């Protein structure tokens, strides 16, 4: 049987401000926006995932 899956999986977070994230996912702390763009890009490609902007200075890398 084929299944239509709507599972999403938050793999990790990327932020310049570690005080804004807590909890059980890996968090990568970066220096600035430019590094955030680069690191989240690498993570998206490595994990076959998409980086989403939370609007709080945190990017979440989510597998869809």
């Amino acid at each position: 049987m084929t299944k239509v899956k709507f599972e999403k999986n938050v793999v990790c977070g990327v932020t310049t401000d570690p005080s804004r994230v807590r909890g059980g996912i890996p968090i990568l702390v970066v220096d600035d926006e430019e590094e955030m763009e680069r690191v989240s890009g690498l993570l998206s490609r490595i994990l076959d995932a998409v980086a989403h902007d939370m609007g709080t200075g945190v990017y979440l890398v989510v597998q869809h």
Partner: protein
Amino acid sequence: MEERYLISIALGAVFGVVTRFLLLRVDYRAYPSYPHAYTAHLAFGLLAGLVGAVTPVALAAEQYDAVTFLLLVATQFREIRNLERDKLEHLETIELVPRGANYIEGIAELFELRNYLIMLVGAATSGLVLISGAVPGAGAGVVLYLVALSLSGDLQLEDVAEIQPADLRFEGPELFIDDVHIMNIAREESREMILQYGVGLTVQAKDDEFVGVLDNMGQRQAIVHDLIHVLGNREDVDTPELKPQVRKDMDSQKMGVYFCPLDFDRDRILKIVRYVPVLSNARRGAGEGL
């Protein structure tokens, strides 16, 4: 056996198999695969036509027990549905943009139904040849073929919805098609990629009755599957942001279709979307009889 019986059976079977052949179109959906599945379906068509054609003759010759074979064959045709479904489901697991369960069920159902149609064409032609002779019977066979052809047609997306090309735009990290929100993309590079490769369409149901059709996830999947199948897919496993999406605007019930084809020919894109079949199992007949 009398000669007229033989002519009846032969003409019935021939009309059956010709109908099957003409209903087997290898088109942009690349289904059935050529030549393997093609051969299998022609063989089934011959059997269906033959059994259909024998039935009136068996009745005329008062061989009533022969008619019971009809039931046996009907069971075989149900197997065709299972065969098609199994095959397509197996292939589904490796598709980046799968067909979806509804589309598969629709295809499987159609293959079964066509065999019944052919059986009926065979039976009716053979019966008419028996009653009125070879030439008028054959003429009636042609008419029956045309009836079968019109019965096998289905609604297409253009019959139930307005389809318009639309621009992709970002508001901050949010991707919109027209005013339909599609998704949130954090990275600048991804946003540039989406604007470069992405294509947007809006699909608005013409009637409240058809809103439900577009709501159906199987129908949405069928739309993006057909588009990607013909136009090619820019997406790879590590670029899920290029995966086709169909999302709905809550206020207007308008659908935004986002996808990243290799071929950007606007006329071709619109033609494909217009021809997407309205899946019979996405239509619920909501409101009918009320």
